[in-house]
């Protein structure tokens, strides 16, 4: 169990770093979405189903959508 959790956390941190590094903002937002999704899984493993649901519905779905809308209205690449 702890091995799976460690791998998940490692993946989460890696995608956070990817979100920090990428110049393409749209891909960075997708990486952010992955961070949120893994965080939702971790919340579920920590016995917090309410929070997991909220994080999946708000953090992963709606926040990503708002980011994508904002990027469409501005610029896709970081200069």
């Amino acid at each position: 169990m702890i091995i799976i959790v460690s791998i998940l956390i490692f993946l989460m941190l890696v995608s956070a770093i990817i979100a920090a590094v990428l110049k393409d903002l749209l891909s960075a937002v997708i990486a952010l979405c992955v961070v949120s999704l893994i965080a939702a899984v971790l919340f579920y493993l920590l016995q917090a189903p309410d929070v997991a649901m909220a994080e999946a519905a708000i953090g992963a779905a709606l926040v990503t959508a708002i980011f994508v809308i904002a990027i469409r209205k501005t610029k896709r690449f970081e200069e």
Partner: protein
Amino acid sequence: MRKIISAILLIIIAGGITLSLMKIPFGIPKTKVGEYYINKGREETGATNIVTSVVLNYRGFDTLGEITILFIAALGVGAILSLGRKRTDKKEKIEPTSSIVYTGCRFLFPILLLVGSYIFIHGHLTPGGGFQGGAIIASAFLLIYLSCPGKRVNEKYSKITESLAGLIFIVLGLIGLAIGQEFLFNFLPKGTLGTLLSAGIIPIIYIAIGLKVGSELTGIIDNLIEKS
């Protein structure tokens, strides 16, 4: 230069946090308050989901503040986007989306609405509640915006929903103040534990919150897509 300074700053904070985390061991029960909620929550509030009873009853005032914050954000987005907009008014050509997206969204929309309502109506029994349900309802409307460009939610009705839902929360609290001497006192009968009609005012408030959160998040998305 900036990177080095930030790195040093972060290392100092990290050191402090590591030292103070030693006092907070992981995985060991440590609180009196949480224990009290788990032991007494069922009889005092009538909800089987203790998180719901904490969110809406023991710490209901936080939730009132929280829906106010979402209300403020929706208003702020509207206020910022409504001014300083150049009135070009060119009718954007509405490109129809592909029929796969259109059909898929038409199919998913009612199901998502149903799931969202189920989640906030059963908030006191199962995981989930007003916020999660409201967010799912908002994502159902997001699908409509994706599949049928040009179609919009009627702003007037969503505004009325927001206001009324907020007022229901406050009025229920004030009735509690009149009957039970305290704001947000749970004055309705608690009912049988585990049935839909139980836990007094909790389901009513959660339904109001679900509608409010749903319409506010929809309003934010609507403003961002259409007005900016």
